[in-house]
């Protein structure tokens, strides 16, 4: 288990997440792509902390911040989905071609 292997796995997760975030029409599936990208970031942070920082506690703090970002993204994302659905009755990105109506 080397740092390079961990970072390559995290890059793969990030790439798959980017594919999902760019390709999916549904808002919820789009958020899944974003979550997968953050998943890759979290793995890379844990790998750096464990294998390159000698276990410095600030590395774990950064990972905790990434987890907080995940929670915030999910909560605000779902709230926006509800708000957009109330206003436009839309659940796919194609329905938001114009910002104002």
């Amino acid at each position, binding site marked *: 288990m080397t740092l390079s292997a961990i970072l390559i796995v995290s890059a793969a997760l990030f790439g798959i997440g980017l594919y999902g975030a760019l390709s999916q029409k549904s808002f919820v599936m789009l958020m*899944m792509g974003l979550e997968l990208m953050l998943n890759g970031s979290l793995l890379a942070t844990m790998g750096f902390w*464990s294998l390159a920082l000698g*276990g410095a506690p600030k590395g*774990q703090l950064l990972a905790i911040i990434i987890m907080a970002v995940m*929670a915030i993204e999910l909560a605000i994302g779902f*709230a926006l989905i509800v708000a957009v659905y109330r206003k436009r009755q839309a659940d796919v990105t194609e329905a938001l071609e114009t910002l104002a109506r």
Partner: protein
Amino acid sequence: MTMTDVAFYLLSGFAIWTGWRVFRVDSMIRATFLLLLSFTSVGLIGLLLSASYLGAATIFMMAVEMMVMGLFMVMFMMNPAGLNPMMMVHQHRLSIVAGLLIFAAMTGAVLLTPLPSDPVAADRPVLRDLGIELLGDSMLIFETAGVTLLATMLGAVVLSSRRGRFGPTDAGSVPPGLSAGGPPAGRQPKGGGSHGGHGGHGGHGGQGGKGAHDGHGGGGSHGGHGKNGGDGNHGGHGG
């Protein structure tokens, strides 16, 4: 190769495979659980990396998050159970190319960069260090994250509220058209369609209300409150 290495490669392969399958299955609920499995694999890799708190927190937090996501899948997706084949994608080739490009670029950077090597000592009390850090030097950062989460909760409640600052948040809501710029899709209320609140149709306020219950009410959503033509006019604001 030690047992830890074998476990790492198995978990890594599983995390990538489940992450990929998230976007390939027809059932949205299965996609949610596959994403949960991917997160769980990463959490277990964290345990292998001596990050016991982070690994466990990842698994617990993501279990809850994915349950919420599954709930939203059922609420908003047309095919949550995967009974029919479904591929809701756009710009598919561009997305594949972008994903592959970013993976290749990051992998190239990893392979070409001389990475430092300073692994965690086996006897290092990482949990104690983290606790001291969170309640010591980095307390302000930790507290800031807590306040940010509180602000997130408030923002989520405000955004998803049924009633906004300027009235009902669904006022004037119409379904999107089937084509770009086309007429609204779905059933229209009988009492004058999306213009159900106009004065001439005010007498049909009750029918407009029925349309609103169907979720396609448009301007008739306020007409439903009306008992006479006057209130039907009020519904015109919604249209």
